[in-house]
């Protein structure tokens, strides 16, 4: 079957009432959490992840993807109206979005952000539709050494997720690998790192870990920051023709920058949004308007943000490499359902993949519909006091962690990692590399052991096979590109926010 035939069957599945409902509920919940001050896509997906565990694989992944997209859209609302970026990717939007809100043009900024996000998101999914299968066509050339090469390539993502210090990122990644080793060994079935404690035999489950690190810790950070709500009134979100005309080139450029850089494994939205914003400023006839409410300053980074988010699905689905923390959780979600993202996914689970791709088109359309007419409701939600929100998130996290395996041990895990996550985030130890290494650890180990078994213990096998060598060389090249991009983004973040933030 050709791509369009696959896509049509994907749409047939994605448009069934049940899956459509999941896309709608996911978009709604994602936007809802995304608009809450200070909560970004990672927190949104972490808080809502356990809710999907009771669903089947297809509706669950549709819901998780929609939560991710929804939170991306929602993040711009607090950035524009309250000057609070949920994650680094929303920082440039604050620069001109908030001044626009102060000038009474907050509605227009939200409208342009929604339109730009829709355009870029849809563009990204169109390319994903035609490009990912080409990558996946290489599936038969992948043996354990090539998969090991892919895992090495994925490890370069750690660099871009390391934030202020590479050593800290690497240290957290090693802790993630160590965590992934707990449980039964894959070769002999012997217990590892359990020290005779029976609940550890089945390992540390992903969901309690994610809930603790990203949801519970978020509440304590929010409590400490004494997050406040601000009354804002929005009258009209539909931009005028002149606004659209002014924004369209910026949306196109933002989409291009966001998408093509987003294809690089490890290039997260936090990097591309600054590049898109700076490109707009450099190309502008009156660069002095930027920072004072220039509509292009909202359009370009928002388009870049969503284009990168969409592009991230290509390395995620075709290679099994997540580009950001929320995509790492999504990868974990796929693996919870026994699906292994990577070249073979398109062959082994074609129906599943094409349903997900079709649901991304559907999700984007739902989000545009939700974001333009319902913006008043989202604005109202930004006023929910943290005193209500914090306890509600904690209670939801508790029952969510329990409900995965009906285990109080999992709840204990989420609490321990919640407290630990707070301390680590407070002291600027990046959590995303830990999560990524935890998720990819078993794959790396499995392919390493299989490869070395094939070669009789010789590591030369990784450089003797063309594709494996090419992947390792690509990893080294990407490492340098990532380092350069990180240096640029860190500098821009310091200039913009006067503080160090994790990317």
């Amino acid at each position: 079957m050709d791509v369009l035939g696959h896509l049509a069957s994907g749409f047939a599945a994605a448009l069934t009432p049940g899956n459509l409902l999941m896309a709608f509920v996911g978009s709604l919940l994602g936007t809802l959490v995304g608009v809450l001050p200070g909560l970004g896509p990672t927190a949104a997906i972490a808080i809502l992840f356990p809710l999907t565990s009771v669903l089947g694989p297809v509706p669950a992944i549709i819901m998780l993807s929609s939560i991710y997209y929804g939170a991306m859209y929602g993040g711009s609302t607090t950035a524009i109206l309250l000057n609070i970026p949920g994650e680094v990717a929303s920082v440039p939007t604050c620069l001109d979005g908030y001044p626009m809100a102060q000038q009474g043009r907050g509605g227009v900024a939200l409208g342009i952000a929604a339109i730009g996000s829709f355009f870029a998101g849809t563009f990204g999914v169109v390319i994903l539709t035609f490009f990912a299968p080409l990558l996946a066509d290489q599936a038969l050339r992948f043996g354990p050494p090539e998969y090991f090469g892919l895992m090495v390539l994925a490890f370069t993502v750690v660099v871009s997720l390391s934030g202020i210090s590479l050593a800290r990122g690497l240290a957290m990644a090693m802790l993630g690998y160590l965590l992934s080793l707990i449980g039964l060994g894959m070769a002999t079935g012997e217990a590892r790192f359990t020290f005779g404690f029976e609940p550890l035999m089945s390992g540390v489950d992903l969901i309690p870990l994610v809930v603790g690190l990203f949801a519970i810790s978020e509440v304590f950070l929010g409590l400490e920051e004494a997050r406040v709500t601000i009354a804002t009134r929005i009258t009209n979100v539909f931009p005028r023709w002149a606004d659209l005309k002014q924004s369209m080139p910026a949306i196109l450029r933002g989409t291009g920058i966001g998408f093509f850089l987003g294809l690089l494994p490890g290039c997260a939205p936090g990097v591309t949004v600054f590049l898109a914003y700076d490109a707009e400023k450099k190309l502008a006839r009156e660069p002095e308007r930027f920072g004072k409410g220039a509509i292009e300053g909202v359009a370009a980074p928002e388009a870049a943000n969503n284009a990168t988010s969409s592009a991230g699905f290509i390395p995620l689905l075709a290679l099994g490499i997540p580009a950001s923390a929320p995509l790492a959780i999504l990868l974990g979600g796929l693996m919870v359902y026994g699906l292994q993202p990577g070249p073979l996914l398109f062959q082994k689970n074609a129906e599943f993949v094409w349903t997900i791709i079709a649901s991304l088109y559907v999700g984007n359309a739902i989000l545009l519909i939700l974001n333009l007419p319902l913006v008043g409701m989202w604005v109202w939600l930004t006023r929910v006091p943290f005193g209500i929100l914090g306890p509600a998130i904690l209670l939801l996290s508790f029952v969510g962690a329990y409900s995965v395996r009906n285990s109080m041990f999992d709840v204990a895990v989420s609490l321990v990692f919640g407290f630990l996550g707070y301390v680590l985030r407070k002291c600027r130890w990046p959590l995303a590399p830990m999560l990524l290494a935890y998720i990819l650890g078993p794959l790396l180990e499995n392919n390493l052991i299989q490869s070395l078994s094939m070669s009789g213990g010789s590591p030369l096998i990784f450089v003797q096979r063309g594709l494996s060598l090419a992947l390792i060389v690509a990893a080294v090249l990407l490492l340098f590109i990532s380092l350069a991009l990180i240096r640029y983004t860190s500098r821009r973040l310091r200039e913009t926010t006067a503080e160090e933030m994790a990317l």
Partner: protein
Amino acid sequence: MNANRARPIDGKIVGALLVLLGIVALREGRRLYVLRETLVAGAVVGDDTFPMIVGAALLALGAYLVVAAAPPAARVELPSGATRAQMLAGAAVLVAYWVMVPWLGYTSSTAIVSVLLYRGMGGYRWPVAVLLGAVTTGVLYLFFRVWLLQPLPTGILGG
């Protein structure tokens, strides 16, 4: 906000911790190696290989953090005063919740804990906290128990 500003203390502490974990990983790797030699004759790699690699990496990174790595320029603001008390109370309530659930069951424990959290973390007056707690408990029960049919702990006392 009540806060103290402090130099990041963490680099050397985490470094030392990583060294310790590295030693633990290497010891576990060694144990698994002996086991592999006994159980699987002729295998060149096994369950011990990755723990050994991770252990060595932890040891090297830990040593680097202890000896050579410079702390980040940014200072960490530590909570103090009322904020710290509020956060510690929140953490204590969560731990108490975990202890309570097997005894009182999910619903009773959630009702009590939600009121305490709204009172302690949210700063609401008791009547408001009770109302918010009742609504939250009801919504969570309806969502997880009634709609998603999740088995929730009933507790020894059947709550």
